[in-house]
């Protein structure tokens, strides 16, 4: 499954739960909700930026952020 998928103004992320913890993802969602709309759907985690920005980077930054949260917890 593709880990980062871009559709229109949305980036869809699919996390492998063997490596990324739910708690860390939840915390990242809370923190990212300031800059983008976050929806958990069947397809994955959908991020829609509130302002115009490079959408692919938001997905990649989200992945990095989750790693950081996991490390700090």
């Amino acid at each position, binding site marked *: 499954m593709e880990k980062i998928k871009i559709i229109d103004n949305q980036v869809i992320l699919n996390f492998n739960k063997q*490596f990324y913890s739910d708690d860390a993802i939840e915390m990242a969602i809370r923190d990212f909700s300031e800059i983008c709309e976050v929806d958990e759907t069947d397809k994955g985690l959908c991020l829609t930026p509130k302002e115009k920005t490079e959408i692919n980077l938001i997905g*990649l930054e989200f*992945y990095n952020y989750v*790693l950081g949260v*996991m490390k700090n917890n």
Partner: protein
Amino acid sequence: MKSNLEINKKKGFVIVSVNPKIYPLDVVMSAAYIFTDKCYVLVDGDLSEEIIVELRPKDKQELEDLGRDFNNELVNYATYAIQTLKNENLRQAIINRVLLTNSDGNGVSLSHSETDNDKPKPWETEDKPWEKEDSSEDKPWFDDPEGIAVPWEEKYGKDKDN
């Protein structure tokens, strides 16, 4: 030996395949976290078969070097983990020793018991020379065998002109 790197120059990323039997998950995740400074890191794969780490550099960087640096970081963290495991008993012994220093011998006691309140505190019993009553207040605090440390006014009286 077969390389564990898969370089995709067109899309600008390198995939590092890691054997979880050699490098445990916490080692891989620690190394991945270190790399979040200079690249975007995605972890995938199967925990029992193969861990796949995708590294996308934030700035222009040689992909092969990046992959090899990641391999080095894996070795670095694995060594650290092994050393930590080896020193675990020693570390525990040191901590126990430190805690026992403040206990009564029957176990660790970090709080004072009721009977402790009756005992004089160490700072109450220690010698305090500055609090001793000075029997000779007039004596100077230094030796003056020649008697030259007498103030002028005391020796000759106050100058009446002034």
